[in-house]
């Protein structure tokens, strides 16, 4: 059985809008509609979508602080909204833009409070603290009040806090937001290791596609409340009709190159850019050009996942 099961889950909100002086208008907003997915134990799944697509709404329903309007949803065999307290002991959450730590207290005190809240056995607590202190480099900041921590330090503290009680499932809502490149990279290393060593199931929302590329074998894309893609990263690449780009440096500037199925999109002196379908091989094209032109250099640019997703967002028709 999947550790997270979501079957036909929808969530709508009734929004009251002021109209004119006294009038009020009720409007139903569909935050997510008819979501279907399952996550297996030990999976690390990326959950992406533009702002307002329904990512946070989904996470809130998975923690039980929001009930679905319709549909069925279980996490670790429990219904989150009715068994929120019991479930809370088995899941961990990191909200990138909020902190679960106590602002005025040293980091160490936040951990101690969490130990009591989740009733973590002493031996487990000590072992986890030792591991996280080492892997997340917490030793130097344990006695610093949280309000004095940098964003990167605070995020490390928050991640440790979410994992302290050995949750089976962890939701990370934009854990790398606002972090510098080095902090992001060390955080990713830690998450990869946690997922592998502890077998923790991780659902990760992010706007940073490098997170997905480096961590997740599976990615779900949500847009305007609906799941528009669920599959592997390669599958996502294939789905987009993004094109690969061949950059050709000719020995001398010349006419735009004409070749098999490629479009010359830009000419700048001796350098020319040609695009071709992402699912075709570059070899025949390169051979053809090398045969017919005086080529100084060649290079190929792969479509970034970002381009693929950008296309996906713009392709789905807007509703409402």
């Amino acid at each position, binding site marked *: 059985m999947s550790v997270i099961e979501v079957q036909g889950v929808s969530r709508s909100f009734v929004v009251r809008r002021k109209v004119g002086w006294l009038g009020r208008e009720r409007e139903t907003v569909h935050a997510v509609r008819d979501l279907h997915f399952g996550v297996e134990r030990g999976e690390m799944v990326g959950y992406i979508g533009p702002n307002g697509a329904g990512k946070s709404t989904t996470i*809130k329903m998975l923690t039980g602080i929001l*009930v679905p309007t319709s549909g069925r949803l279980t996490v670790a065999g429990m219904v989150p909204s009715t068994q929120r*307290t019991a479930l*809370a002991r088995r899941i961990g959450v990191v909200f990138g833009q*909020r902190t679960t730590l106590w602002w*005025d*207290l040293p980091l160490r005190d936040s951990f*101690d409070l969490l130990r009591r809240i989740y009733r973590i056995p002493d031996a487990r607590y000590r072992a986890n603290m030792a591991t996280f202190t080492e892997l997340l480099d917490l030793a130097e900041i344990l006695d610093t009040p949280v309000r004095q921590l940098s964003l990167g330090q605070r995020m490390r503290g928050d991640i440790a806090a979410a994992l302290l009680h050995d949750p089976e499932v962890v939701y990370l809502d934009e854990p790398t937001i606002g972090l510098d490149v080095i902090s992001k990279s060390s955080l990713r290393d830690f998450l990869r290791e946690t997922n592998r060593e502890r077998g923790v199931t991780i659902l990760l929302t992010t706007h940073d596609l490098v997170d997905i590329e480096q961590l997740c074998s599976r990615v779900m894309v949500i847009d305007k409340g609906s799941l528009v893609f669920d599959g592997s990263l390669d599958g996502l690449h294939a789905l987009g009709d993004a094109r690969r780009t061949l950059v050709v440096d000719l020995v001398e500037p010349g006419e735009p190159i004409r070749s098999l199925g490629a479009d010359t999109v830009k000419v700048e002196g001796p350098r020319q850019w040609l695009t071709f379908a992402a699912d075709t091989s570059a070899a025949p094209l390169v051979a053809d050009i090398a045969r017919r032109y005086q080529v100084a250099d060649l290079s190929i640019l792969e479509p970034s996942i970002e381009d693929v997703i950008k296309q996906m967002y713009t392709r789905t028709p807007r509703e409402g």
Partner: protein
Amino acid sequence: MRATVSLWFAVAKRSFRRYSTYRAATLAGIFTNSVFGIIICFVYIAVWSENPGAGGYDAKDAVTYAWLGQAMIMTVAVWNGGATDDLAARIKTGDVAIDLYRPVSLLGWYLASDLGRALYHLLTRGLAPTLVGAALFDLRYPADLLLSVQFAIAVVLAVTVSFGVRMLVSASAFWLLDDTGVKHLAAIFAMFFSGLTVPLVLFPGWTGDLATVLPWASYLQVPADIWLGKHPGTDAWAALAFQAAWTIALLWLCHLVLGLANRKVVVQGG
């Protein structure tokens, strides 16, 4: 059960420590309380010299009452503040979602936190100005050990009653998003009906009768009357029972309101 008690104790301890980090604010507050204590003493001395025995107090009672008032202002958080303000702020920012999903009682958490704060304020903003008052004026002290113990219980219950009221005020933010207006209104009621401006014993006729049964009487009038020995014998226990009754009623109401708030957030989506 033991784990829960130890959690609340840890929360209270952390809260105490948190307030103790703001030393300058504490010192400034002690100075302010002392100055106001002196001013109010002179006013009371003037009133009681014109009208000795007003409200059943003599001048010495009145002067002592003035200092007890200063000691209780921050301890019960007459003008709001304390852990309940944290809740209101967290509702506004949405951080309350984190509180809701934790496997602990919201009410227990904030009560423990507020008790830790109250103890800190009692030991600093309560005790220090009282020492100033004792040095400058002739004060009355509890007649015996029993009265001191009863006074200590009265102070704890004063905090729990005021916590209940403040919690309801803060919880209004679940519906209003901003509790500033409600807070101002509540502060005016609390200042007037706690007896902080004028002892409730001076309220004339039915206003006096009404004021003594409202929850705010628990803030200052009840503890002060126990300290001054105005509740002889079993009357002191009755006064404590009055505070306990309001504590239970208010905490129960808080429990209901937080339940509704929880439903609102979870079902309607905030």
